[in-house]
């Protein structure tokens, strides 16, 4: 049946009514999560993830302590009801471990770990619902949760998936599209335009790859704008609550994101 759904029809519409370069509705929620130092819920279309950050705090285990910087620990949990087939994945599942290590290596160069030697930052990622772009949602949520926790970052990390249908590139894929198209998840640091992650499970033509990379960089900027607006809103709220609504303009970014 799914083979009878057109990925991109002659009118230029995708199966969910979007055009090639339209991103799905995205929501960023930075409400507190009990006990966590920072948390964020992110949705891209129907894909929903929640990330909680603990730390920086004292490393619990000696073996994981690094003497000159903080250790980053990422754990991923995928809710069984989040996928179509209700498969239960254990924590030791190879795919999940790989997923966690992808997130970790994406953020390692971004978090200013040197500021917190011998400590630990725990990132818990919960995938609540999946409809494509899970990695992109996890990365964007992690960025916000870290910001929320006050962990100093060199820059935001904004991720987006891109794929190619015949010769037509498209952004922010749904599960239906991911199943059918060669695709790639790209994470960029919008300020410098640096790419911190390219994750590809399918083959992609090299010419197309360049195009997708360029588009993803541009899309990262769009997502960044959205995220920044939410962070500002949140910070403004906090500041207002503390009764010191003086400097609100660039406070949010300056406080959490050091100049690069």
């Amino acid at each position: 049946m799914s083979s009878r759904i057109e990925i991109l029809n002659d009118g230029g519409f995708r199966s969910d009514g979007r055009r090639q370069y339209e991103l799905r509705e995205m929501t960023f929620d930075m409400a507190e999560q009990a006990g966590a130092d920072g948390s964020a819920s992110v949705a891209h279309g129907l894909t929903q993830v929640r990330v909680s950050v603990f730390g920086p705090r004292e490393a619990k285990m000696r073996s994981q302590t690094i003497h000159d910087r903080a250790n980053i620990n990422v754990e991923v949990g995928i809710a069984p009801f989040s996928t179509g087939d209700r498969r239960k994945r254990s924590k030791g599942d190879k795919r999940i471990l790989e997923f966690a290590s992808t997130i970790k290596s994406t953020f390692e160069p971004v978090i200013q770990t040197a500021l917190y030697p011998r400590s630990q930052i725990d990132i818990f990622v919960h995938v609540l619902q999946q409809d494509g772009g899970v990695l992109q949602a996890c990365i964007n949520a992690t960025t916000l949760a870290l910001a929320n926790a006050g962990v100093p970052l060199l820059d935001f990390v904004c991720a987006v998936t891109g794929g190619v249908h015949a010769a037509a590139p498209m952004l922010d894929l749904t599960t239906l599209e991911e199943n059918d198209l060669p695709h790639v998840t790209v994470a960029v640091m919008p300020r410098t335009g640096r790419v911190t992650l390219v994750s590809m499970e399918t083959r992609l033509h090299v010419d197309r790859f360049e195009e997708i990379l360029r588009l993803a960089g541009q899309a990262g900027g769009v997502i960044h704008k959205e995220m920044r607006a939410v962070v500002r809103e949140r910070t403004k709220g906090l500041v207002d609550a503390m009764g010191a609504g003086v400097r609100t303009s660039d406070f949010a970014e300056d406080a959490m994101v050091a100049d690069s």
Partner: protein
Amino acid sequence: MVEITIRKRQREDAVITQRKFFKKTARGKVIKVIRERYLRDDVVCGIEGCRECSHTTDTLLPRNGSPDHKSFPNGHYVLPDTNVFLAQMDLMESSLFTSPIILLQTVLEEVRHRSLPLYNRLKALVNMDDKRTWIFYNEFRSETAVVREEGETPNDRNDRGIRKGTAWYNSHISLTRPTIRGQPPPTLPTVVLLTDDVANRQKAEKEGIPSLSVRKYVEGMPNNSQLLDLLSAESDTIEPTVAAGGRGPLYPEYLSSGTLTAGIKAGELHQGHFNANTFNYLEGSVAVPAFTKKVLLVGRENMNRAVDGDIVVVEVFPEKDWKAPADEVVDQEVTLRNDDAEDSEEEADNDEVIAEERKALRSEEAARRAAERQPTGRVVGIIKRNWRAYVCHIDSSSLTSSNTTSISQQTVFATPVSRLLPRIRMRTRQAPTLIGQKILVTIDKWDVHSRYPEGHFVRALGKAESKEAEQESLLLEFDVPYRPFGKAILDCLPPEGDQWVVPPKSELGPAWRDREDLRHLNICSIDPPNCQDIDDALHATRLPNGNIEAGVHIADVSHFVLPDNPMDSEAASRGTTVYLVDKRIDMLPALLGTNLCSLRPFVERLAFSVIWELSPEAEIVNVRFTKSVIASKFAFEYTEAQRRIDDAKQTDDLTESIRLLNTMAKKLRAGRMAAGALNLASPEVKIHLDSSESSDPIDVEQKALVETNSLVEEFMLLANISVAQKIQDAFPQTAVLRRHLPPPPTNFEKLQDILKKRRGLSLDVSSSGALAASLDKCLDPGEPAFNTLVRIMATRCMLSAEYFCSGSVSKDTFGHYGLASPIYTHFTSPIRRYADVLAHRQLAAAIAHVPLHASLHSKAHVERVLGGVNRRHRMAQMAGRASVEFYVGLALQGRVARAAQTHAGRVTQEAFVIRTFRNGLNVFVSKLGIEGLVMFKRETQFDADDYTLTIPSADGGAGATIAVFDKVVVSIDVEKDRNTQRGKVKMALVSPVDSVGL
């Protein structure tokens, strides 16, 4: 730089934009699927000059619709529902149907779900130049999107969506053209909902939406009489009334689709393709996985309205009722000659017909051989109809009035050209003028009350037996696309046209990039006479180390045919060039096929070369692949090349080169044969055409083969195998390969039995090598043709080769049985086969000449394309064969006429018996490559177990016994069937007994 935006969704939209459902996978697992939909306001209406919508294309609907309908003087557009396209595609496609069409996304998608062939026709219709069609994506526009309500069926939801779309259009038109003060109110065109669903029309009326039935609509059109003929019987409910009144149904009803699915799952019912029997119209069979032998369906009732090619579900009878297939020839034209189309439902006629058919199915069951019993059963349901347009003749005896000026509607029989199809009943006003013409008829439905399927007339092809009509009907019958190439396709050709030449050598020019200069090599081509599309050329030289360098150079088609442009898509959909006796239907425009990509002599051409270093024993030492530029030194015909090789005085480089190739080819061939390759035979004959102008065949003869035929063949096989290995290594998931599955041993049972009983020979079918060896031993010292005959019959027991995507099947099924090669592909004829074009692209990527196009990384895409190519390939072969048959028929007619003139008497030929029936013989005339039936009306003695038939002599004395493999002499005559105008080859036995009058 493109604009990237975020699609916001309104909170209140959530209910209608999100969907959650469960679906079952092929493995029976239930999975949850979530989807969402973004509604928008920028989906455009497609009407010229609309002030609300910003259109980006210029192929829009006219601002005031079409004024050509008497009910809508202010202009109108039609908005057909799904069933209109499913049932009335011929009408919609007709060039006479010119009304502007609004095609809703809901309709388009529903057609796609219901029938892919109709969907493809619909897409073609949208792109037709003389049609004005606009696709409105109603499901994505916020005002027109609908969501299925509680308790609503998907059908009702779609109907509601279609009504909503119609209503929106009408209000959109009036909102965007308001009355301007001081001016008269503008006249507004109407959007009319076309639907044959009465309930839908009633609802539309209630909602104030203009709607009409298709018939009503067409009646208001200017050229309605021609268009009304195109209406499918589906929309008339007039026909079955007679039957329904008189008597109970003739056929059992089908089971519901739920029951069918459950039955198949439980193993109680079986699904497969229905194959009609060429010799006996009252018998068909269905191959199903659960039984090694096909399930036999005996009689009309058990075949239950299945038509050749349908996917049906059968119920198998208990084993005690199993039977051997009939051993009698039953011709529907003879048995049913008295059936009347107009009132075939009347009791009297019916009884006669039934009695006649009973007699045909007469209880010779006792005589049916126990050994050959196979499962029997009946059709209980249809999964998919594979109905299409069939080439037919009108049966003149079914006309009630043959007055040519009569335009009264008559019900007549259309007899399909193919013997596998039942007659079709249809109504037409043009019957008298259609007599003697080839016409195209589609089947619309087959009711339980109607003995025959009902259909409608599509169009006339021309006078029967005129070459134009026969040619076109052949192309239609085998679904060969034969439209001339359109402008968009021709625009993909090099702008220089036939002035194009290989540019002067330079490292920088794109044509020379990574290309080897092989112009100095002694390359030549060897082809049949008058070959215009030369896609291969060869060379060979001795190397200093004693080894031999041999090269195969194939036209570099992928240099000109770039992926995913209109020319590429057209070639993919054509799949192959089709060769008829007097016409070639090209896969690629002639400029490429017969010029730029034809490796003509004395000009430079781009090529893709496979170059081996072979040991003197023809073992591959090394192989490399490279794009190249070559200059062929000569274009040989097979016989000419053979003469050069044989003439010891010729010692020039070119002759030495082909001599060396010939030596190597012999060794390659010996090696292949030792590995167990089969040497199969299929009857191939050559038609001599008088001259290219008249194209009257003057004679037929068997094709002669010379050594050089196999020289070329061996090197092509070697190239294909080498390329197959290379692309499979490079792209294990999506390599385009070709395989030939080993035939199931049961396919050979009958042939083995005949060989054993008639000749005491055995056939070892355990492997292709064993089969090859035992075929070699099937010899008759007195009859050299016997071996060929056995080979032909063995070939018919095999499966056909097919293209496949390497990632889609398990690796141990890659092998090519006939060639005894573990891997194979097609690389050597990219001008005329699309699979070769794909192989070229993959090979070019494998040697890093160009990166592989994204589509060739997609397994789904490769599978889809190859599925289409396989089908086209089969059809092309059948079309080619049918074309030869037609010309053999014409040639025979000529011979018969000449024989009559010169008083030489009858045309006689030697023939071999390949099958015996209770009332006839199936014979093969090897000299003409045709098969024919010799029928006996007189009682004969038939021994089914021994495959013999004893025929009394004309004077009643002791006759002769004839068995399978016997050589007989037949007289051949061509006579025109009085009713169908179909030229029919009639054969009669001359020796051992003269069967005239028998």
